[in-house]
């Protein structure tokens, strides 16, 4: 038995007037006249703030989340599942990861709103309003100063601890006592690279010529240093530096200038104008760091005789404590860049920038983000990488009072597979590579599909990292690896077509983002310490060599396919 349905009568007109939103008609003339006199947003309801902010923040946060979390999870799970070791201080590391993500989010936004308006305005106006010499001088300063603001450069300063002072004395000296010299060398290297890149725009040099002309002296110097036992340990660090420099600050700033210069030189239609600087910015610093090493060896004949650095005072000043130390470091990294851009904008371009409050917001957020990122670097990324590196050898070698977890060949294999997977995963997740893939697919009219590029680069990085890890585990010298790899790259460069050359060399720089670099650097140092290697550098160098070779090879393959197709048709 069902209940009888009660019908309630409702007039359709009443229903409509209840459902409808009331419309009040106001003349736009009146509103317009009134709105002109108002200056600030009065009566912004809480819900309005929420509606405006939430999508904005969540999009940016998830961007970082997607890049960081899979990597961190992979490292932690590998450690737990394959190596049966717990992650030490898990909460602290998780907190650090959160700080890294928040910091990167804020920092990238800060760069976008605080720095990019300047560099776009300068890049557009400066080449027309001053002499080429001034432009080149500015390019040099910009490259150098931007290096200081690069988030990953902080990882270098923290890397000194993992080096054996007895077997690599000069390297240890450079990292612990003269880290500023190291950073300066890198900065000067990047500055010079930017200058050469700008000259390339002026004169329309071919990338191929430039690569050969830069690479040959670089390799010669590397070989010279590699055969000198005092200098040999520095080589790995030097080539790693190249990978560190080309990050999210330098590349867009320099490109904005480059586009302006290219336009002024009358080559704005050259589709490949954007490529090339990244390449040079990873070769020049290596050169500069080796030179600093040579200088250091000449200056300090015997590091062991140097008085040990007096330990830090027991009383730590308030500005050296955790939140302030990071803030000060961030300020020191970003302030010079802002100052340079502002001065040039003010006095050389002579135009005041619009929307000062938004630029101020950008600068504040960039500094805050950098500070948070540095904090996360110290408590999150570096310890995680370090731990993973330190526990990996347990897979194949006997620890203190314990047998190896796996038989030697399986353990070694597992380690290399771990390294390769890490490189592959980190590369696939890199947003810059995806963007580059789209550009390349368009530029080559689909001959070089995006997927193929991403796969080629990812496999190159994976193999590179695996070789780098093998270098540390087996105590190989990095010299033959570098020489052999770059000789292949050089040969490939000479025989390849111009666009593939630019593409291959730039893909090396694209892969090393601000999360991957510290993680891999710390991994190498932890691993080096655990297996008793003199130093744990070189993984990054290999990771940037790998994609150069792999992309060049794929380029060859495409070229041959095209030739064969052409011959087949005739």
């Amino acid at each position: 038995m069902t209940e009888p349905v009660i019908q309630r009568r409702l007039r359709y007109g009443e229903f409509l007037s209840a459902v409808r939103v009331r419309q009040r008609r106001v003349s736009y003339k009146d509103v317009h006249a009134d709105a002109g006199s108002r200056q600030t947003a009065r009566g912004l309801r809480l819900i309005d703030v929420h509606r405006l902010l939430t999508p904005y923040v969540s999009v940016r946060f998830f961007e970082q989340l997607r890049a960081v979390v899979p990597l961190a999870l992979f490292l932690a799970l590998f450690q737990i599942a394959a190596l049966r070791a717990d992650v030490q201080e898990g909460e602290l590391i998780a907190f650090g990861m959160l700080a890294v993500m928040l910091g990167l989010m804020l920092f990238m936004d800060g760069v976008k709103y605080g720095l990019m308006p300047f560099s776009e305005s300068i890049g557009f106006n400066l080449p027309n309003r001053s002499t080429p010499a001034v432009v080149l001088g500015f390019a040099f300063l910009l490259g150098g100063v931007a290096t200081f603001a690069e988030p990953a450069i902080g990882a270098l300063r923290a890397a000194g601890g993992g080096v054996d002072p007895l077997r690599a004395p000069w390297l240890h000296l450079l990292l612990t006592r003269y880290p500023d010299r190291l950073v300066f060398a890198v900065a000067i290297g990047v500055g010079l690279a930017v200058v050469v890149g700008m000259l390339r725009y002026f004169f329309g040099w071919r990338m191929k010529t430039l690569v050969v002309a830069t690479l040959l002296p670089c390799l010669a110097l590397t070989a010279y240093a590699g055969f000198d036992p005092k200098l040999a340990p520095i080589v790995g660090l030097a080539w790693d530096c190249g990978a560190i420099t080309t990050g999210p600050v330098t590349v867009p700033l320099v490109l904005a200038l480059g586009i302006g210069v290219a336009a002024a030189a009358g080559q704005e239609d050259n589709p490949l104008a954007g490529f090339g600087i990244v390449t040079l910015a990873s070769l020049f610093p290596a050169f500069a760091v080796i030179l600093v090493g040579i200088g250091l060896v000449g200056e300090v004949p015997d590091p062991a005789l140097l008085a040990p650095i007096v330990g830090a005072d027991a009383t730590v000043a308030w500005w050296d404590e955790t939140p302030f130390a990071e803030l000060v470091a961030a300020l020191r990294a970003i302030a010079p860049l802002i100052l340079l851009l502002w001065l040039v904008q003010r006095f050389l371009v002579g135009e005041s920038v619009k929307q000062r409050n938004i630029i101020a917001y950008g600068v504040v957020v960039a500094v805050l983000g950098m500070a948070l990122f540095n904090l996360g670097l110290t408590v999150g990324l570096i310890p995680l990488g370090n731990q993973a590196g330190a526990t990996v050898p347990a897979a194949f070698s006997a620890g203190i009072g314990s047998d190896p977890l796996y038989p030697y060949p399986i353990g070694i294999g597992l380690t290399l597979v771990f390294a390769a997977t890490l490189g592959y995963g980190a590369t696939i997740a890199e947003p810059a590579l995806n963007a580059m893939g789209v550009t390349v697919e368009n530029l080559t009219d689909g001959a070089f599909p995006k997927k193929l590029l991403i796969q080629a680069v990812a496999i190159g990085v994976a193999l590179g990292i695996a070789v780098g890890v093998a270098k540390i585990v087996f105590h190989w010298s990095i010299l033959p690896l570098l020489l052999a790899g770059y000789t292949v790259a050089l040969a490939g460069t000479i025989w390849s077509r111009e666009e593939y050359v630019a593409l291959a060399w730039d893909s090396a720089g694209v892969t090393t983002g601000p999360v991957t670099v510290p993680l891999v650097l710390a991994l190498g140092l932890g691993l080096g310490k655990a297996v008793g290697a003199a130093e744990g550098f070189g993984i990054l160098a290999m990771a940037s060599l790998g994609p150069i070779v792999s992309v060049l090879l794929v380029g060859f393959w495409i070229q041959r396919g095209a030739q064969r197709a052409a011959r087949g048709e005739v």
Partner: protein
Amino acid sequence: MRQRDEIVVLTDAVLITCIVQRGVADTVVDAATEAGAQGATIFYARGTGVRQKHLGVLGITVNAEKEVIYIVAPADHADHIFERVYVAAKLDTPGMGMIYMSPLEKMATYVPPEIAARFGHHG
């Protein structure tokens, strides 16, 4: 009988144009479809509003990249769609965009022959 040289011209149509930030168009189209709209045309544009200047630092959260949505609706239906879209796109928050409605003199598109036949010849 429908002749070959005849065009069925529809009258009493209204064009609803909605300008929102990039990425919001789907919400708008969904709301409009639910309210009875038959279709929508979306195109991309750039633009900044008067209001954005008054939002202060919050102004950066408003994307200058916009999506413009065209919806053609019958005149007696249009007010309903207009309201639903206004609510769904949260246009009562500054910076979110705007919506306007303009009368169309006439429109023409594919009209199924049996429907055209049902309404016969007017002229």
